[in-house]
């Protein structure tokens, strides 16, 4: 079995953590990395083969899709692992359809059961758990921030630098980075969670006051975060 982990180095490290329960039986684990890639980081990850997309914008879906397609032209991968972010959900859908392949998004775990890889995800607005298996090739999008970073523990055979054409169907006119807080909800002991019922800033301050009192962090629903 051959698998490909795709993303920026920090994301690939997370994906390495995600696949660690199943990585023993996998013959080849390659990575395709975007952005500023330092040799030391790649050595630390220790995959079998490394592809570095030199001229690809790590935030542009067209560039990411073209880079993945370029790597897939050379090898058939059974599973292509991506982070389950908004950007990569778009990328994953396009790659999966090109490959006539199934995809599992927001996967929270991977395990081997009866010789098959079984992925788990939440379904029906968190009211059910779905255990899913897919024919290969398949695209798997793993939920970020849930796993520790892991080394793949292999010896690097080859590092290839790939170059894409840069043809784009979407032109970026303006881009604004969001302010990021220093809070890691994964590390919080208690989370005060808010949703759409919190209409005003005053409502939200109540949640922060409560969180301060009980030593919690404030989190919010997907809907609330996309609104603010």
């Amino acid at each position: 079995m051959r698998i490909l982990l795709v993303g920026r180095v920090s994301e690939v490290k997370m994906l390495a953590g995600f696949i660690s329960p199943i990585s023993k039986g996998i013959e080849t684990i390659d990575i395709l990395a975007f952005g500023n890639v330092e040799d030391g980081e790649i050595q630390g990850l220790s995959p079998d083969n490394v592809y570095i997309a030199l001229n690809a914008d790590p935030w542009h879906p067209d560039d990411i899709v073209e880079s993945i397609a370029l790597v897939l032209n050379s090898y058939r991968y059974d599973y292509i692992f991506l982070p389950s972010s908004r950007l990569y959900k778009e990328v994953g859908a396009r790659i999966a359809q090109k490959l006539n392949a199934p995809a599992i998004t927001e996967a929270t775990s991977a395990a081997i059961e009866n010789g098959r890889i079984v992925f788990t995800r939440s379904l029906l607005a968190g009211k059910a758990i779905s255990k899913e298996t897919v024919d290969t090739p398949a695209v798997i999008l793993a939920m970020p921030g849930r796993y520790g970073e892991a080394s793949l523990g292999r010896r690097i055979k080859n590092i290839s630098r790939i170059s894409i054409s840069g043809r784009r169907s979407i032109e970026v006119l303006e881009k604004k980075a969001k302010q990021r807080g220093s809070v890691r909800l994964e590390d919080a002991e208690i989370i005060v969670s808010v949703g759409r019922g919190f209409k005003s800033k005053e409502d939200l301050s109540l949640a922060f006051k409560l969180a301060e009192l009980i030593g919690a962090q404030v989190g919010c629903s997907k809907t609330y975060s996309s609104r603010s």
Partner: protein
Amino acid sequence: MNIAVLVKLAIETSYIRLDPSNRVLFDEIPLRVSDIDRNAVEEAVKMKQQGVAQKISSFSLLTWGATSKRVSETQNLLREILAMGVDEAYLMADPGFNIYSQLYTARILARMIKRGGDYSLILAGEASIDGYSSQVPCRVAEELGYPCVSYAKRIEVKDGSVVVERELEEYSEVVRAKLPAVITVTREINVPRLPTLLQIRAAMRKPIHMMTLAELGLGEMKRIHERVVEGIRTQRKNIIVEGRNVDEKVEKFLEAMAREGIFLVKG
């Protein structure tokens, strides 16, 4: 310009039913128009009212079993979006399509859109309320060879292009794509309208075109994705915190939480 809107008839997640072994009884759960697809419909209707679009067609696929009960339920749900301002609905309901597959769902929808007419803009919600996988619209774009822009919170059509303000986790951006294109919208793009009684009555006269796999030139589809779904049972404690004023309510709330072992009050 004509607009196609992808509308999913999703499982109503507020009415999940389980058997004693926690298996989800999908056949017994009602469907509803997926919330964010209503935002897509609203955006299309606004464009029509502004004179940007001439015709709006919706495209749906019955993915939860094409029994006569489900078909009738689905037709009633489609009347809701016809009442919002959609001109016609296309529905593929075929007992032959009984597998879970984003791949085939997208392929069928793409064929339906081609069969439906000439559409410059295809709108959809960013995700459905039941699966939340966000896969189908961009897969449809890939099938049609169109660009896909996801997570739009503002859309402007001008000079054969679409300019979209969109929101990703780490940044927001404004992008431009040539039409035809597929755009997915977020909830924040608008507030879907509630149709008036007259609009609801008028919707009864609007057409719902039924389609089958054979009509779309599609045959048997291989099962490539299996899933076993288990419901999560939750039981509410039904604790009501009462007090004469906010301070007393907060104090009692914290005491109740501490009693439940959820946390201990600092200090």
